[in-house]
């Protein structure tokens, strides 16, 4: 294997391994700088936390040939306009609760996690809540008492009672609303949100 031909020599491949690895890693670092800037909250692709003060829709974009979140008029969560800091604190409480309750080992978030329960990426916009007026109340009731208010669609797979407090429930809903406004390149495909605008 190493008898003379350069392309089969150990030395050649050692150098290859080093250069290829170093080059790819440098490219990844450069892309990481760019991507992190693009996904900072408040930039084009990932909304500011105060997005929870607004109506969020999911509509088809001709140019990109995919559905994208569209941030609309004011539609405060629980009827209260929050400052950017207050909104961030509420979404943060929701994110912490989602982690502490281990939601990701049944659900998926942005499609990542476990597959025992539905994806939560667009849970805020899910047509299963009926309409915008009922949504906050139904979500609150479900999260507070998932045993009684189970939504199993005939599978009998019920969410366990995770003992979430009222404030944590508000946080989770704020987090879900914020997540539904993240630009996910058209994932999930073909998703139709619940009727918008008080219909």
């Amino acid at each position: 294997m190493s008898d003379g031909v350069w392309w089969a020599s150990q030395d050649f491949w050692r150098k290859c391994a080093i250069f290829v690895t170093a080059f790819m890693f440098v490219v990844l670092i450069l892309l990481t700088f760019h991507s992190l800037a693009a996904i900072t909250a408040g930039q084009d692709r990932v909304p500011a936390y105060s997005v929870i003060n607004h109506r969020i829709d999911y509509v088809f974009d001709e140019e990109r040939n995919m559905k994208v979140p569209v941030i609309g008029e004011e539609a405060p969560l629980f009827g209260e306009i929050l400052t950017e800091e207050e909104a961030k604190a509420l979404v943060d409480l929701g994110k912490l609760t989602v982690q502490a309750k281990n939601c990701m080992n049944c659900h998926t978030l942005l499609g990542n996690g476990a597959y025992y329960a539905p994806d939560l990426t667009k849970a805020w916009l899910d047509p299963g809540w009926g309409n915008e007026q009922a949504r906050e109340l139904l979500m609150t009731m479900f999260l507070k008492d998932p045993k009684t208010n189970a939504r199993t669609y005939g599978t009998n797979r019920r969410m366990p009672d995770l003992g979430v407090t009222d404030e944590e429930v508000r946080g989770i809903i704020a987090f879900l609303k914020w997540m539904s406004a993240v630009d996910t390149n058209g994932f999930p495909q073909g998703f139709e949100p619940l009727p918008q605008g008080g219909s």
Partner: protein
Amino acid sequence: MAEAAIANPLRPALDAVAARDTSSLSAGQRLALKYFLVAMVLFVAQMLFGLLAGLQFLYPELLYGVLDFSVNRMVHINAMIVWMLYGFIGSIYWLVEDEAGVELVGAKLANINFWVLTSAVAVVVVVYLVVQVGPGNKMSIWLINEGREYIEAPRWADIGIVVCMGVFFYTVAGTFMKGRWSGISGTLVLDLIALAGLYLAGMFYTTNLSVDQYWWWWVVHLWVEATWEVLVGCIMAWGLMKTLGARREIVTTWLYIEVAMMFGAGILGLGHHYFWIGTPEYWLGIGGFFSALEPIPLVAMVVHAVYDAGRHSFQSRNHPALAWLIAHAFGNFLGAGVWGFIHTLPQINLYTHGTQWTTSHGHLAFFGAYATIVIAFIYIALQRWRGDVWMSGDLPDRGWKWKWSLALLNVGMLGMTVALLIAGYEQSFIERAIGGSTWAAYFEGQTQPWFVQGMQWRMVFGVLMTAGLVLLLWDFLTIGRGETRPAKEVHAPGPHVG
């Protein structure tokens, strides 16, 4: 003992056959056995909690409110990650002194390190099972559960893991520095630095889920699809030399080729996790292209292993280990390579991301790439421990235990993978393509007969695997015991002709 000495007067080390103690082993090898033992305990735990989680798909009321799916699934995947890491650490401790030519540096420290790490793992698992979840604050993340798939270990344990990995690294790198370096050990040590460094990327909290998942994939992807692959490449190279007598020059050159291709494709292949998490659209092209190349090094590994085995006419000093090394080569190629490739392009991944396709791929990839090679190494270790005894063909009882456990574990895993893939096809079609991924569409998919049948068959094959594991552990306890023939001598073949 006398028989052994007569059979092979040149090997007084065979005295240990009768004693069956660990006194004939080096410090690193004794340590490796401890790691392997814990690895197997965790393998059993992984299997049991996997069975429970699988059953809950069919009987959702089972242990509802006591051991919910989320808990079982978390223990299932965490036990897997940790037993594989234990298997790797054990394998490295097994080969380090042989490869470096000196005794293990810091053996006492390494021993304490084992007990600290193992105690920490035990505490984490007990907290997972007993406490399960906490209130929505940072204390829960520090003390109970971080709630991020695969790296759920609470922050205190993260820090402990990093410290223990530091000690492990010190003992291994120190041993090579004291002794001699080789291509294998150089690659291994550099890879361990990357592996430990990457874990740090998962050790912080942020409100922004997109940023969270960006770094989370640095740990998960760059571990299992890059640094772990290179690590098993190193172990494989050493394993082929030991079981077949393959020439160092050849395995080392192959290792470099594999590293070049693995990192060449795998580092930017990370982009296939950045399609849908909020990251820019260019990742669709970069991730799709590079991750599509990821199977190439795995093909190279198959060619390498099979070519080497063929060159040596399958004359190995350890048949079970060689069989598992070959299972590794094919399992890695099929599970990580083919099963990864089939849903890696964004055009298909849009419909498969977050469905049972991922489960199917995950199962075969982790088993094929990593479980197999750890099992191979345990056989190599057992052979030496039991006194470098014969483990080639013509074993007592025709070696039925290792052959049947090999067959049951591999057939069980393949069957489970196919069953999950069929469930995944159905889910992509009903829930995604037709239903548009609403909650109603999700449950519509979950109740379709083909999905349910997929889950049923997964259980059948899971039970088959469990039987294979029982047999494997029985074989581990018995193989080579009472054997008096010394291990078969294997030699590197002469230069290739023609």
